[in-house]
């Protein structure tokens, strides 16, 4: 059986345009010119290339630039042997645009959900050795900015021991940096900045903040945040940089708000166990709220800023700590006055510690 069709052909060897007849014989075909016959070519090797106006253009596997252009109505005998035209590409063509869009939306949502929720389960599976090494790499000796004096160290150790059952896997340090802050880092590293100690009026306030940071360590928040950020960076890697970063930050922030609340809860619990009053921490947040301006804002506004900021508003935290006060309970101060003075002045006393000046966190 053989049939003939007219077509335009380039052989891929030269740019000469050839008008040919396609002679179909079974699963193969020949291209016939006045004085030339090429082939046989197998239909199995024919690939769809593109649409040129109304004409479909086909190529041949393994023959660079080989083209066969069929214009006008192509007989159905031939269409049946040729590969299907491609519009969007594989999956979308098979499903259709609407279904493909829905399928992609679901897949994307699932990918984001996995990235957001899996760190909670994955973080505890990361071996401690990895966590420790990461902490060492990040913190090290902090450029010699950690303050150490025998009496101050003893006071700090006492404070940590009263707030945690396994203080040996924590590494709590005071850094000679004048910032009102404290951070939890991988490998059980907790850093209290000297500015925070200077601002605090009682050891109970420091205990509250320290317990909060220990809460982050114990709940594996640091590793979770790290995994979540890495996952989001990969999933949102395809989105253009600016909008990707905005989405990333909003998603990550809502999770870190949860983490802050969990760390606060941890702080209240261990302080209760250690018989340390949460009053100091509450008043500390009260003073902070005047600094961050949240005290004066309306409730509605506070809701918005509270949602978009990574730390719960100081006012809300103050309220929470105040509520955790148990009336009539016999609270003890976290440190004796002498210990508190040693801890507070440790960085001033330490002559060997490097200056925190020029340290830029951002």
């Amino acid at each position, binding site marked *: 059986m053989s049939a003939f069709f007219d077509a335009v052909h380039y052989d*891929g060897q030269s*740019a000469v345009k050839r008008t040919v007849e396609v002679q179909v014989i079974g699963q193969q075909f020949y291209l016939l010119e006045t004085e030339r016959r090429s082939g046989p070519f197998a239909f199995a090797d024919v690939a769809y290339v593109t649409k040129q106006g109304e004409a479909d253009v086909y190529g041949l596997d393994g023959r660079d630039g080989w083209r066969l252009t069929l214009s006008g109505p192509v007989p159905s005998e031939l269409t049946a042997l040729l590969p299907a035209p491609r519009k*969007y590409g594989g999956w979308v063509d098979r499903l259709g645009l609407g279904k493909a869009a829905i399928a992609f939306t679901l897949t*994307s949502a699932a990918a984001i959900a996995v990235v957001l929720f899996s760190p909670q389960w994955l973080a505890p599976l990361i071996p401690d050795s990895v966590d420790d090494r990461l902490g060492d790499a990040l913190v*090290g000796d*902090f*450029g010699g900015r950690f303050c150490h004096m025998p009496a101050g160290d003893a006071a700090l150790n006492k404070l940590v021991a009263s707030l945690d059952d396994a203080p040996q896997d924590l590494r709590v340090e005071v850094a000679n940096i004048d910032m009102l802050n404290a951070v939890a880092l991988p490998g059980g590293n907790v850093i209290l900045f000297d500015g925070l100690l200077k601002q605090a009026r009682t050891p109970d306030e420091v205990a509250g903040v320290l317990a909060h940071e220990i809460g982050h360590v114990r709940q594996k928040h640091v590793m979770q945040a790290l995994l979540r950020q890495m996952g989001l960076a990969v999933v*949102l890697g*395809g989105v253009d940089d600016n909008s990707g970063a905005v989405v990333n930050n909003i998603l990550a922030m809502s999770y870190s708000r949860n983490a802050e609340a969990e760390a606060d809860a941890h702080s209240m619990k261990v302080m209760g166990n250690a018989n340390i009053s949460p009053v100091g921490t509450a008043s500390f947040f009260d003073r902070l709220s005047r600094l961050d301006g949240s005290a004066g804002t309306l409730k509605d506004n506070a809701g918005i800023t509270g949602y978009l900021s990574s730390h719960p508003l100081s006012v809300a935290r103050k309220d929470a700590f105040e509520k955790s006060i148990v009336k009539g309970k016999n609270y003890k101060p976290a440190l004796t006055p002498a210990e508190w003075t040693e801890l507070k002045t440790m960085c001033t006393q330490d002559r060997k510690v490097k200056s925190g000046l020029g340290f*830029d966190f951002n």
Partner: protein
Amino acid sequence: MNDEPLQPHSAFRFHGSWQEFARIAFPNLLLTIVTLGIYRFWATTREREYLWGKTEFIDERLEWTGRGIELFVGFVFAFLLIGLPFIVIQLVSQGLIFQGAPVLAGLLTFAMFLSLFYLTGVAYFRALRYRLSRTYWRGIRGGSDDPGFQYGLAYMWKTVLGWLPIFLMVPWAMISLWNDRWNAMSFGPHRFNANAEWTPLMKRYLLFYLVPFVILIGGAILGFSMAASGDMADVLGGTGMAIGAIVAIVALLSGYLIIPLVALIFYSKYFRLAVGGLRLHTLEFEFRARAVDWVLFFLANMVIIICTLGIGYIFMPYRNWKFLFDHMEAYGEINVNELTQSETVVTKHGEGLLDAFDVGAI
């Protein structure tokens, strides 16, 4: 064959319409959003298939044979080879700052910047090579056997040399790099020959270079004369206010309009010279858009984007391509028997590097 009027003087003709392009661009936008950006590689490919296929050179349409998967693989490569190491380097240098080794961190960051600089040059080169190797005309394609690593070095030293004499040699660097790039490219068996000159570009460049100073001095003079006429404010009444408003408007315009417009005037000359210096065997090229065409094109783009609240942005590839080929011209003869297939290597991955650095256009 075509229902459009023949333009016997133009070797390049573009037959596309924005309505047809919209039927590609809008589904592309949808699919890109629901795949968190991953579809954009296939989106780009579909747009190129359309634009190339609607562009006629002499008597045959161009053909884009690049695949979305190639661009995707290129992007993944770029992420693994550049993105990931850079994230690690950033982490390490942050750790180094923490640990008090800012000099080492600075050196590391500088090395990172240098390699980015180098890779940007390589990326420009490889993007052009990729595009030529996927562009077919009458079954014949272009390409290059040069991997572009040398070009990366040339890109570095020529760019720096262009900046050194208070940025006065930038036109030389631009033209010289254009020539370097195109001299390494070929189409079919023929090498491109690029010998554009840079000296005719200097007048326009000096205009662009001096405009900010002129605006500054003009503003100062106007402000001064206004201050001098301050005594007459009562007499002039509203005139003083009007002059103040005019000064403010001129200042605003200069920032957002005048400087970009002068840059366009320079760029129009650059592109005309660059294309004008290009030859392919017996073919010569010319780009006929004058400064006023570029300015009108630019303003129309702004209007389209603003009036559509940004959605018009998806038509920019169409507008750019149409502008390019509406003004592109070629002279000379082509012997189609001599125009044989290119023997250059075909890389399997697309413009990943360039994509990673977010630069585009030929």
